[in-house]
């Protein structure tokens, strides 16, 4: 399945949106999609994760406007092939999706 993933990025005081097109099965989690982007397309995107199984909470981001855990949210459950990912809060953004929590 083709997904258009837009990530709201922030670095060195500049904010912008970057879009990536990925091929992934609908069972892929948002976190795995981000990891794929890092590994194959753009190693500079920054985000947090640890347990990868919905326990620790550090992968929280906003997906299509809703706060979710990236590691428990599957692309296929979002009801759209266009996915917009932004930091969980607008304040204290350290870099890209990483916020000071």
């Amino acid at each position: 399945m083709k997904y258009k993933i837009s990530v709201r990025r922030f670095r060195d005081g500049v904010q912008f949106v970057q879009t990536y097109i990925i091929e992934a099965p609908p069972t892929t989690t948002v976190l795995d999609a981000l990891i794929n982007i890092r590994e194959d397309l753009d190693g500079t995107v920054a985000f947090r994760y640890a347990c990868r199984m919905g326990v620790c909470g550090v992968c929280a981001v906003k997906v299509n406007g809703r706060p979710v855990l990236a590691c428990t949210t599957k692309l296929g459950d979002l009801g759209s092939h266009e996915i917009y990912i932004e930091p969980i809060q607008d304040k204290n953004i350290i870099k890209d999706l990483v916020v000071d929590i």
Partner: protein
Amino acid sequence: MEFVQWHPTALIPSGILISEAARAEGAYLVNREGERFMKRYAPQQMELAPRDVVSRAIAMECKAGRGFMWKGKLCYVGLDIRHLDPSRVKERLPLLLETVKTYAGIDPFSELIPVAPAVHYFMGVIHTDLHGRVLDPYGNWIKGLWAAGEVAAVSVHGANRLGSNSLSECAVWGRIAGEAAAKYALENRSGAVEEYIRAIAEEEERRILYVLGRRETGGIPAAHVKSASQKVVTKGAGIFRNAESTAEAIAELVKLMNNFRNININDTSRIYNMELREVIELDGMLQAAYALLLGAYLRTESRGAHYRIDYPKRDDKHWLRHTIVYKYGDSFIAAYQPVKIEGWPPEMRQY
């Protein structure tokens, strides 16, 4: 380092652990023929045999072609909870139900849960004494350095950690090492760290910031070297090992270590640089992998999680010893230290 624990039941394909509690509640492990295969490997303990025994049993079933295949490339077996009382499962194993539903999309009350062994825990790693102090190869404390947790080899686990025993590492040794380190820092306010250690730290910082952080475009992505090294170590020193497989893996790993020099970092910023962190981790990973493979190659016996097909028996006469791998310049050297047996001498393992 050669003692690596495989957890027998990680969910396919995500690798998330399905707790032992499932088998403790009475879940079965079955192969493609619907047979409870543990009867062949541990007729008395069955599914409750230790992790290394169950992991090997699953690998054997896969070798014999009695496993299921995931996308034609990953062999797994079924964890069966269908005969258990659903209300009890809901009460006792809520995390299992949620995980299986989210990550495998399966209803475990009507389908088998797909599971396979996955690397879980390192029994060895940093050489410490009982107080969590890090030791050099000669057994002297490296002043100012402690290690606690999975990273430390205090030797509570021997060659095979039992479930939940890692808690003692954080609860007991975390406290011992933490308190000792705090006390030491208070008592040695200035010069707490020896000069040569400070020099090593500074050298390391320079290496990271200027050598790793200043690559131009081109080169190989770190993720490729990482996944290649995972494959090499799993193939060479996974659940089963032998002289040939470990020797081949060492040769492959050396190639990857050379590739490491050509890894490219795109992100050159100094703030939350995930790429840089991953490359530093990979550097450590490759070296740890080398120590692991070397230990596995040299240990010509089978003990706990270390299983050599060419030496399937435990050999207490020669191998009641710790392997200590250290670096001298760019070379890795393996040294040995006898295991001190205080209370219980090792016995035959029978299940």
